[in-house]
């Protein structure tokens, strides 16, 4: 299964970036093979508005079925939900450890945003 993780760097040793829409990178990783691709999120990071929405669409485009991040706002959550991407918030640590933890099967998925929208 492919999952997306917000990351401060572009490798599996990087720390998770708690921000979703404005994360530095979004890493899409195969949970079985650990093959991954790191997407530079600079365009969304500097977006005037709607960063979370655009990042959510990008994750859906890359066939990730799950998003692991720190905080997810209401617009992003709505988009991910429509795209059928499950969201787990409040994640921390190195990307590789986050993936390992996910593979152990203890991840709790969110049923809503855990952050207010930005105005």
């Amino acid at each position, binding site marked *: 299964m492919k999952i997306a993780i917000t990351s401060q760097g572009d490798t599996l040793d990087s720390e998770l970036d708690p921000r979703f829409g404005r994360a530095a990178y979004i890493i899409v990783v195969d949970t079985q093979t650990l093959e991954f691709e790191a997407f530079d999120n600079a365009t969304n990071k500097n977006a005037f*508005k*709607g960063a979370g929405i*655009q990042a959510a669409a990008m994750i859906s485009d890359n066939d990730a079925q799950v998003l692991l991040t720190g905080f997810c706002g209401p617009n992003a959550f709505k*988009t991910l939900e*429509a795209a059928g991407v499950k969201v787990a918030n409040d994640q921390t640590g190195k990307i590789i450890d986050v993936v390992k933890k996910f593979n152990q099967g203890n991840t709790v998925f969110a049923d809503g945003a855990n952050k207010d929208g930005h105005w």
Partner: protein
Amino acid sequence: MIISIASGKGGTGKTTISTNLALSINQKVQLLDCDVEEPNCHLFLDPVMETLEPVIAPVPQINLEKCTFCKKCMDICRFGAIAVLKKDVLIFDNLCHSCGGCFEICPEDAIIEKERSLGEIEQGTAREIPFIHGRLDIGQVMVPPIIKKVRSYTDPDIVTIIDAPPGTSCPVIAAMNHADFILLVTEPTPFGLHDLKLAVETVKILNIPHGLVINRADLGNDEVKKYAIKERIPILMEIPFDKKIAQIYSKGEMIIDKLPEYKEKFQILFDKIEQQVLAGGQSK
């Protein structure tokens, strides 16, 4: 003649000046409350409202039968209001600025124009003066279209006084642009001066003649005056920090009703503004 009453800092006395000036001058005048996020002139004037007009704007709606999910609409949207997914397209109405880009770029003619409400305009009379104000809908953020709609009621044959919102962003520009004179209301405090400087820089870019009213003039320090002299901005009126004025304001009453000597002071203020506008016209 259009006089826009602005300030950098909020709470310096724009509404007090706007309402009292409008009721004091010996010319035909109308008052436009352009602080549409929190209009308050009506609290002091008790106008009788006659008409209500909605302010609407187009937002896109996607016809999924025609859509090929090409993402051109999503890419052109500067505000991230459109999310094209694999089998669905989401529109976030509140982020949309109604620029029309998505309608233009869609190669499949799959975008339908839907209307949404941004706010409303009320028009009426306050003590024989034409009075117009706008009100932004709760949850909406697009302010300039409402201000422009309020200003569409401008009568070019009489004096128009505009109560502008505070700050220096788009709504303020919308309330100041194309005015003949901008009256900046400030107070002699570090906060007042800091935001006054920002407002002056904005007015300079708009290239509109401007002058100052210093409210609560005997408070704080004299840095605002020094700045005005340095920048050659005329100080047209000073209002003291008077407990009586504060009490009148807090009851929603007009200064000129309770302290009638102010009526003449506001007339003098208007005469000075008129002189400035005439002088500005000559130098151009």
